């Protein structure tokens, strides 16, 4: 009897323990959520800017370790090498070349990740990359969704990501993202280094903090694009601003933009608003829609 009674008491205590455990877990449903959210890195906060190797380039090249333009040694197809050469020739003559950003069109991917100050806001469903340049922001969806069926092409593309705990310490340390569905034209840099005009690029990125320097963020970017003979990878790096950020800058391309495109020609706008040629012996704009003769 004693043994049975002891067993009953032990069982009752075990039941009480299980009930307590369950109640505790239920009460801390928020705790479970918090534990889940705690898996996301808290160390990506702050303001990040592109690492500039001044001895090499300051123009915002895709590969930060090589000069912009031809110096990038991009694996362009012959067709797109020609596009690039023509762009640089046009620029030498005062034109804008294959560089849409010169007229305040968005850079899009991958140039969107070049300039300004970046902030990463991480939630379980989405990682937001807030940009302070003329391009707005990126949403990297991490909620497990698949690609949309009828996506609207955009300059920034549509990004789906996945967080990975590579070192198994319970906290995610790598964000892998894939980005598709683009608008164009887009260029890698200001020389007009082109992406294919079919806008079918695919970008694969690995975002992670440097193991030896927590103030360096890597974005290992691989571009697959029909302007390239093979995928092109660059380890793009960003440094965290050391000072406390009081105010995030606001950038508007239109402010100070002196480029005006009329027809197929670009012109300069003087400070007093008068139109100026951008090229030697450039013809004035076609005024066929005006009834009066120009001054």
């Amino acid at each position, binding site marked *: 009897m004693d043994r049975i009674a*002891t067993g009953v008491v*032990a069982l009752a*205590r075990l039941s009480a*323990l299980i009930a*307590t*455990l369950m109640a*505790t877990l239920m*009460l801390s449903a*928020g705790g479970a*959520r*918090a*534990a889940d*959210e705690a898996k996301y890195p808290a160390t990506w906060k702050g303001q990040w800017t592109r690492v500039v190797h001044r001895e090499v380039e300051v123009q915002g090249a895709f590969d930060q370790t090589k000069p912009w333009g031809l110096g990038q040694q991009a694996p362009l197809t012959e067709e797109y090498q020609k596009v690039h050469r023509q762009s640089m020739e046009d620029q030498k003559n005062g034109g804008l070349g294959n560089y849409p950003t010169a007229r*305040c*069109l*968005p850079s899009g991917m991958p140039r969107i990740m070049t300039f300004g100050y970046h902030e990463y*806001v991480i939630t379980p*469903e989405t990682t*937001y990359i*807030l*940009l302070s340049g*003329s391009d*707005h*922001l990126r949403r990297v969806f991490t909620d497990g*969704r698949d690609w*949309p069926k009828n996506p*609207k092409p*955009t300059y*920034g593309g549509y990004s789906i990501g996945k967080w990975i705990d590579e070192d198994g310490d319970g906290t995610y340390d790598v964000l892998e993202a894939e980005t598709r569905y683009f608008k164009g034209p887009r260029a890698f840099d200001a020389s007009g280094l082109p992406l294919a005009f079919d806008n079918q690029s695919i970008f694969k990125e690995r975002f992670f903090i440097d193991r030896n320097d927590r103030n360096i963020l890597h974005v290992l970017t691989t571009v697959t694009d029909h302007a390239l003979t093979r995928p092109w990878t660059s380890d793009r790096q960003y440094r965290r601003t050391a000072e406390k950020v*009081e*105010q*995030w*800058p*606001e950038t*508007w391309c*239109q*402010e100070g933009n002196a480029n*005006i*495109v*009329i*027809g*197929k020609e670009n012109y300069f*706008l003087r400070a*007093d*608003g*008068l*139109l*100026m*040629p951008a090229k030697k012996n*450039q*013809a*004035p*704009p*076609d005024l*066929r*829609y*005006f009834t009066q*003769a*120009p*001054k």
Partner: protein
Amino acid sequence: MVGQGSRHAAIIALVIALVAALATWTAPAAAADAKYPNWKGQWNPVLPAAVADKRMSFDPGKPAGPGQQAPLTQEYQKVLNDSLADQGNGGFGNDPTALCYAGGMPRMMTYEAQEYVITPETTYILLGGDDHLRRIITDGRDFPKNLNATYQGYSIGRWIDEDGDGTYDVLEVETRGPFKGPRAYDSTGLPLHLDNDSTFKERFFIDKTDPNLLHDVITVFDRALTRPWTVDKTFRRNADPQPDWPERYCHVTNNRIMLGNEAYLLSADGLLMPTRKDQPPPDLQFFAPAR
């Protein structure tokens, strides 16, 4: 037997204590997070069906421009009248966004596809217009000195649990300059003061009877006004859990240019066009005469 029972009791007590300790350890973070409301999703401005004028306006319950009945000073009433007259004559009037300049505050809050990303330190309002986003700082800081002028101003906010249920339900925000300008409330050129010294006070909250309706009650203090002007802007949550987030860049579609003091249009084939009858063409004095 008693000894064994005591050991069981001791083990059970220890396990309970450990579980309680674990719960206590995770609870503060959870509690802190739980205090912030769920405003997730895509929010779009509510345009009352009764208002025939579908141009985005500051007070969505009234037509744009004079229909807003803004309490403008006489001086700024004239700025609005001049803007309307210029627009009637083909010009852009006092509407800087016509040339792809920023809308700034408060016009940026008329944009569609808004998203509220709430963290303890900052509430981000991501906007589907050319003005990208607002950062509302909620980390307890005071307004910094020596701010750079921006179109959106500098916003400091405070979360309030008004009904005492343990979850914040109101975000109170004050936005100050120095602002950049010019800024207009809407496309008619309804002006804010050119001194760019406006202050905005906002209360963001979910409607008590409709969890999919967000209010932004904005009060503008501005020297172009005879008194503070308050408007209750409302936004409806998109029912689609994976909505399309539009990407808008003014320059992609803009066909308006300003040369000197004259407004012109670009035709579909990119050629320069007048915006009014008998408008003179632009001054081309810097071009070599045609041979």
